[in-house]
């Protein structure tokens, strides 16, 4: 690690960095000269390429957020190695779809652990370091499903509504320490997570959107980058929807 290069950059920790929206956010963070700590279970070829292209600006940490017990140790190790972070992007999520009545309890449990408890614990341990710097950003990735509802996604919807509630209250708790806490709520995007949405159902979502298309991961990543910026210093406790107008 080149400490001189790193010291000039603000450190951002992002979960679920290996693909989809997480990867798009990593790309834009690197373009904007942040130092990125990219957390994901495994290293995708796309993220690996990004690490090769920016060896001084990004570090990959393999971690499975289903392991809640070691999140404190993970955060401690990150702070020791990379210093106090400027920002955390809680992006990792799972989206098992299925009728609630037949969803296995272990899947419900695992979804809530990864989508709700893991971001809460990461925020707990990393916001404390931000407090000592008197500045910081926590950006949680929600979904329009938190408010619109979608058959087959009730547990996922519950997890995203929980994250939005968490965001509003935490913003009140840590605002005095100069930390902002916001959500970005994307609509349907064409990522691996929504790959089950195909054919007529997908066309119908596109048709109903005022812009006649889906928002892209890059569109949602731009909203994250805005909330990360100095220009967004007076925004906290908000939910920014990026859905090509689908929920207008």
């Amino acid at each position, binding site marked *: 690690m080149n400490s001189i290069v790193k010291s000039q950059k603000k450190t951002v920790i992002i979960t679920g960095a290996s693909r989809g929206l997480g990867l798009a956010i990593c790309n834009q963070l690197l373009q904007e000269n942040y130092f990125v700590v990219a957390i994901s279970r495994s290293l995708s070829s796309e993220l690996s390429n990004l690490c090769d292209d920016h060896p001084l600006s990004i570090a990959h940490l393999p971690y499975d957020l289903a392991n809640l017990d070691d999140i*404190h140790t993970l955060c401690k190790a990150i702070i020791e190695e990379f210093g106090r972070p400027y920002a955390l992007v809680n992006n990792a999520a799972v989206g098992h779809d299925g009728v609630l009545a037949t969803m296995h309890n272990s899947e419900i449990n695992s979804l809530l652990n990864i989508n709700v408890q893991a971001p809460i614990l990461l925020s707990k341990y990393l916001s404390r*370091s931000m*407090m000592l710097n008197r500045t910081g950003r926590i950006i949680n990735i929600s979904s329009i499903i938190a408010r619109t509802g979608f058959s087959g996604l009730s547990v996922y919807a519950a997890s995203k509504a929980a994250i939005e509630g968490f965001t509003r209250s935490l913003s009140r708790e840590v605002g005095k320490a100069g930390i902002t806490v916001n959500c970005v709520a994307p609509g349907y995007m064409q990522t691996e997570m929504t790959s089950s949405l195909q054919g007529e159902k997908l066309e119908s979502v596109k048709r109903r959107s005022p812009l006649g298309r889906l928002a892209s991961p890059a569109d949602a990543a731009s909203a994250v980058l805005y909330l990360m910026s100095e220009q967004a210093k007076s925004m906290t406790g908000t939910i920014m929807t990026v859905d090509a107008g689908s929920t207008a």
Partner: protein
Amino acid sequence: MSDLKKTILDCMEQVAVIADCTLIENISDDTVLLQSGLDSLGFAMLVAQLEEELGTDPFSEMELAVYPRTLGEFVTVYKNALS
């Protein structure tokens, strides 16, 4: 005064400045933490600062939630964690 207690009191002073709080004078083992001048955010900062200084956050490492009432109890929690 033990080194540990001195470290904790030094950190309290540093954190009071960052948290924009004013510590009371003559803080002793019997001082009730919530009457020391630090607010709840200040205590969160104190735990973070001590984790950087001492390498441990005993409150996260203990299996059950513990909330020390006085400075003496707070120091004992760290003493036990470091022993």
